[in-house]
C-alpha cells in the first residue's frame, strides 16, 4: 500500500465516518470534515517527493492488484507529473470548500459534508486510475455527490441544473463505456499502460475507421465535461445554481476531468484520429474562447459571468492539447491548474459577496470598495490573475498555449489571443460595477470586511496565484517530463511544419531542456 492509496481511500473513510456521526452535532461534523480533509491534503503533499529532485516523467506510487478476475479488472493506480498537481489541487480545495461552507450551509449539514468528502474520493480517483474500468467507476462515482450538492443545497433552479448536469455527463459516458468495452475486446485488458503500448506498437490492431470512432466516443464524453462549445450548455446552469463549494469543486476540479481525459487517453491512444480531427476541434475551442468571453460580458449575474469565463478559459486548454506541441501540452496542463486556483477563488469571492448581500445580480452592488477594502483587494488580485496579468498564474498558461498554437497555426493563435483581450474587458467591467462608485447606505451596512475564516480561505489561493505566476519552475518540470512521454510517439509522426524549432523563451526553458535530454 502506497501513500497514493492512502490519499485515495482516506476521503472514503472520512465519508463513512461522517455518515455515522450524529446528525445534530453540526460543529463536530464540520470540525471533523475540516481536520480530515486537511490531513489528506498534508499527506498528499508527500506525493511530491519523487518529483522533487528529479522529474521522472513516468508513473510512480504504482499499485496494481486484481479486483475482479474475469473480465480482468485491476485496481491499478499511479501518478505522473500531470496527475500529481491535479490530485493536490483536489485535496487543497476540499478543506477550503469545507471552510467556505462552514456557515453558509446550515441545513442538512451532515449530508453536505459527507457528499463533499465522497466527491473528493471520486475526483482523486479519476486522476490516478490507470485501469479503464476503474477510471470509469471513479468518473461516475464523482457524478453522484455533485448531483446532490447542486440539487439539494443549490439556488432556485437547482433541480433543473442538477438533472441537466447528470444527464449530459451520463449520455457522454455511455458512449465512452462502449469504447472502453470495445477496446477491452480488442486488447484483452483494461490496463491503460498496456493498451497504450499495444496501440503504439500495433500489437492491438485497429483500423483507422475504428480508431476514429473510438476517438470520437471518448472525445464526446470528455468534451461534454470540459465543456467544449457547443456542448457547454449544462455548465452555466450547474455553476450558477450550485452552492459556492459546489461551484468551486465543479469549476476547479471537475471540468479538468474532461481535459485530463483528452490529454491522457484521447490524444495519445488515437494519435492519427486526433491529428485529423485537430482542425475542427481547434476551431470549436476558439469559438468557445471568443463566444464564452462575449457572453460573459453581457451577463447581469456575476456567477454566470464567471461560469462563461470558464468556457472561455477551458477553450485555451483544449486548444493547447490539440496543438501537439510540448509548449501547448505544458500550457494546457498549467492552465488547468491556474484555472482551478483562480476561478475557484473567483467563485469563493462571489460567494462571500452573496453571503453578505444575498444577491448574485451585479446591479445589486456598487461601491463595495468603500466598506470592504480588503475584500476588494483580494478580488482585484484574483480578477487580474484570471485576466492573465504577467506575474500571475494564468499568464504563464495562456502564454505557453498561445506559443504552442502559433507553432502549428499562427492564425489560430491570433484569434485565441482576442479571447485574452475580451477577458480583460468583462473582468474589469465587472470589477468596476461591483466595487467602484458610490456605495448605498443599505449596502454599507451589510458589507463587513473579510473575517478570519475568509482570510484563511483566500490567502492560500492568492499566494498560489503569485507563486505559480513567478516561480513557474516549482511546478512545470514534472508536467513537462510527463507531457514529453505522452507526446513522444506522436512527435515521431509529426508533419514538417511543426518540426521548426520553437523560439527561445524563459518560460519554456525547462521543457526545452527536457526535450534536448530526450
Amino acid at each position: 500500500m502506497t501513500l497514493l492509496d492512502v490519499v485515495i481511500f482516506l476521503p472514503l473513510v472520512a465519508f463513512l465516518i461522517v455518515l455515522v456521526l450524529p446528525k445534530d452535532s453540526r460543529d463536530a461534523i464540520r470540525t471533523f470534515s475540516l481536520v480530515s480533509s486537511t490531513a489528506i491534503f498534508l499527506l498528499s503533499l508527500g506525493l511530491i517527493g519523487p518529483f522533487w529532485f528529479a522529474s521522472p516523467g513516468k508513473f510512480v506510487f504504482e499499485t496494481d492488484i486484481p479486483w475482479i478476475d474475469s473480465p480482468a479488472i485491476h485496481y491499478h493506480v499511479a501518478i505522473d507529473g500531470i496527475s500529481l498537481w491535479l490530485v493536490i489541487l483536489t485535496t487543497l480545495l476540499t478543506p477550503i470548500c469545507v471552510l467556505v461552507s462552514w456557515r453558509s450551509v446550515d441545513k442538512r449539514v451532515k449530508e453536505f459534508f459527507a457528499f463533499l468528502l465522497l466527491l473528493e474520493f471520486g475526483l482523486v480517483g479519476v486522476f490516478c486510475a490507470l485501469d479503464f474500468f476503474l477510471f470509469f467507476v471513479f468518473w461516475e462515482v464523482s457524478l453522484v455527490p455533485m448531483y446532490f450538492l447542486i440539487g439539494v443545497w443549490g439556488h432556485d433552479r437547482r433541480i433543473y441544473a442538477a438533472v441537466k448536469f447528470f444527464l449530459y455527463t451520463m449520455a457522454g459516458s455511455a458512449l465512452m463505456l462502449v469504447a472502453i468495452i470495445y477496446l477491452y475486446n480488442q486488447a484483452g485488458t483494461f490496463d491503460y499502460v498496456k493498451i497504450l503500448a499495444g496501440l503504439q506498437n500495433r500489437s492491438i490492431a485497429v483500423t483507422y475507421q475504428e480508431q476514429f470512432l473510438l476517438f470520437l466516443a471518448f472525445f464526446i464524453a470528455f468534451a461534454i465535461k470540459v465543456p467544449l462549445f457547443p456542448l457547454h450548455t449544462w455548465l452555466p446552469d450547474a455553476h450558477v445554481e450550485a452552492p459556492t463549494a459546489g461551484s468551486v469543486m465543479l469549476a476547479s476540479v471537475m471540468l479538468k476531468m474532461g481535459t485530463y481525459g483528452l490529454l491522457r487517453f484521447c490524444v495519445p491512444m488515437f494519435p492519427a484520429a486526433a491529428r485529423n480531427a485537430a482542425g475542427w476541434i481547434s476551431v470549436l475551442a476558439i469559438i468557445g474562447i471568443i463566444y464564452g468571453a462575449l457572453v460573459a460580458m453581457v451577463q447581469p449575474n456575476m456567477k454566470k459571468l464567471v461560469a462563461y469565463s470558464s468556457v472561455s478559459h477551458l477553450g485555451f486548454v483544449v486548444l493547447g492539447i490539440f496543438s501537439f506541441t510540448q509548449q501547448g501540452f505544458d500550457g494546457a496542463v498549467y492552465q488547468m491548474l491556474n484555472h482551478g486556483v483562480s476561478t475557484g477563488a473567483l467563485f469563493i469571492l462571489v460567494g462571500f459577496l452573496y453571503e453578505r448581500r444575498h444577491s448574485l445580480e451585479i446591479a445589486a452592488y456598487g461601491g463595495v470598495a468603500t466598506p470592504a477594502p480588503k475584500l476588494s483587494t483580494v478580488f482585484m488580485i484574483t480578477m487580474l490573475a484570471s485576466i492573465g496579468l504577467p506575474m500571475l498564474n494564468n499568464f504563464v498558461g495562456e502564454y505557453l498555449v498561445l506559443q504552442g498554437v502559433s507553432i502549428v497555426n499562427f492564425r489560430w493563435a491570433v484569434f485565441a489571443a482576442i479571447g485574452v483581450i475580451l477577458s480583460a474587458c468583462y473582468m474589469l467591467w465587472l470589477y468596476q460595477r461591483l466595487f467602484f462608485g458610490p456605495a448605498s447606505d443599505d449596502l454599507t451596512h451589510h458589507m463587513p470586511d473579510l473575517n478570519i475564516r475568509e482570510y484563511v480561505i483566500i490567502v492560500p489561493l492568492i499566494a498560489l496565484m503569485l507563486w505559480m505566476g513567478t516561480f513557474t519552475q516549482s511546478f512545470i518540470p514534472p508536467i513537462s517530463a510527463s507531457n514529453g512521454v505522452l507526446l513522444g510517439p506522436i512527435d515521431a509522426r509529426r508533419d514538417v511544419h511543426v518540426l521548426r524549432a520553437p523560439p527561445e523563451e524563459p518560460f519554456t526553458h525547462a521543457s526545452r531542456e527536457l526535450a534536448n535530454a530526450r
Partner: protein
Amino acid sequence: MPVNFAPSAADYLRFLPEIIMIVAGTLIMFIEPLLGEKRKEGLSFLTVVAFLAALVAAVMANNDPGTAFSKMLIVDSFATFFRVLVIGVGILTVLCSAQYLRIEHAASAEYYALLLFSVTGQCIMAAANELIMIFIGLEISSIATYILAGYLRDDKRNNEAALKYFLLGSFATAFLLYGIAWIYGTTGSTNLTDIRTYLLTPGSQRNVTLASISAALMFVGFAFKVSAAPFQVWAPDVYQGAPAPVTLFMSAGPKAAAFAVFLRVFNTAFAPITDRWEPFVWSSALLTMIIGNFAALAQSNIKRLLAYSSIAHAGYVMVAVAAHNQVGIAAAMFYLAAYAFMNIGAFAVVTHFSRQGEKYVNVEDLAGLGWKQPVTAALFSIFLLSLIGVPLTGGFFGKFYIFKAALDAHLVWLSVLGLLNSAVAAYYYLRILVVMYMQEPGESTATLQPLGIGIRTALWASALGTLILGIFPSTLLNFARNASVLIK
C-alpha cells in the same frame, strides 16, 4: 426385461425443493383454521422456514447434478442458479408482505400457499429439460400469480389486473403450446437435447423452416412472460393494479424463471438455428428498451413507472440473449440476480410507503422522504442508482457485462443504442431522487410509520446484495460463467 419406471432416490433428491414447497403450501392451508385470528402472523414465519428448507435442498441438489424422472428434469448449475434466485425472491416477498397484509386485513393462508406454489412452478421451469415440463412449470407459476394479482378481491384495480393478466397470459401460453406441438410434429420429441440433435443432423434441412416457425411461436410465449416488446402491453396495467408486494414478486421471480427457460430453450434446442431467431431477439431487445424507457418518462404513478422500468430492464437482458454466446448467458444470469435485488428493494419501499388502500403511490408523494426517514431513502437511492447503472452497484456491473457480451457478438449498434437508452432512463429515476431529497416533506411523508421488521430486513438484504454484486461480483460471475458453459 421389463423397464423399471420407478424413479430412484436420487431423482427425488433432485426434486426435493419442489416437494418441500408443495407440501408446505398444502400444510399451511390445513393449519390455518387451527390458528386463531391473532396467530396468523405465524404463517409468514412458516413460509419463510419452508423457503429456507427448499433453498438448502436446492443447494444440496447441486452437489449431485444430473437428470431426473426420465430426463424430464435436469439439475445443473444453471438450474441451481435460478432455483436459488426464485426461492430467494420468494423469501424477500414474504418479508415484505406481512406488514402490507396486516394493514389491508387480508392475511390468510392462501396468499402464502399461492406464493409457495408459484415459486415451485418457477423452480420446475428452471430445472425443466423438456418442453412439456416447461409448460407445466409455467402454468403452475402463472396460475398462482394470476390469483395473487387479484388477491384483494374487493379492490377494483386488483380485479382488473388479474383479469387482464389472465386473459392475455392464457393467450400467450396458447402460442407456446402451439409451438411445442409444432416442434413435436417436426422432430418427434419434446426433449431439448433430442431437438438439438435432430436439428444438427445433416439431411434434416427441409424441416428447419418448420422448426423456425415453432421457435417463433415459442418466442411469442416467452416474450409475453418476460414482458418484452411487442408483447409487453399487459405489464404496466397489471403491475399497477396488483397489490404492491405481489408486483414486487412478479417483477422479479416469474420474470427470472421465464428468462431461464428462454435462455435454455433457445441456447440448447434452437442453438443450431441461431441465425434465424437472432434478428428477432435483436429487434425485440431494442424495441423493449426504447418503449420501456421512453414510456417511463411520462409516468407519475410510481408503480407504473417501475413497471415500465422493468420492461426496459427486460430489454437489457434481451440484449444478452441476442448475443447468444456464453458471456451473454452468464451476463443475463448475473443481471437477473442483480435486478432481483434492486427491483425488490425499490418495490419494498413502495410497499412500505403506499399504506392502506395504496393511497400514496405517486412519485410526488415521496416528497421529503430523504429527511423524514433518511435510512429508507438512502437505501432507496442505492436501488435507484443501481437501476440507473451507476458503478459500484450490481446494476452497473450487470449492464456492463451485458454490453460486453453484445460487443463480443459484434452487436455494436445495439450496444450503443442500449447504453444511450440507459442515459434516458437516468432521467426518470433521478426524478424520484429529486422528489425525495430536493422537495419539502408533505402530508404523505409526515404520517409515515417507521419500517416494520420484515420489510426492514428485506431492504437491508437487497441493498447489501446490490452493493456486493457491484463491488465484488467475481463469485457470482464465475458461478454464472460455469453454468453457462454447461447448458451449451
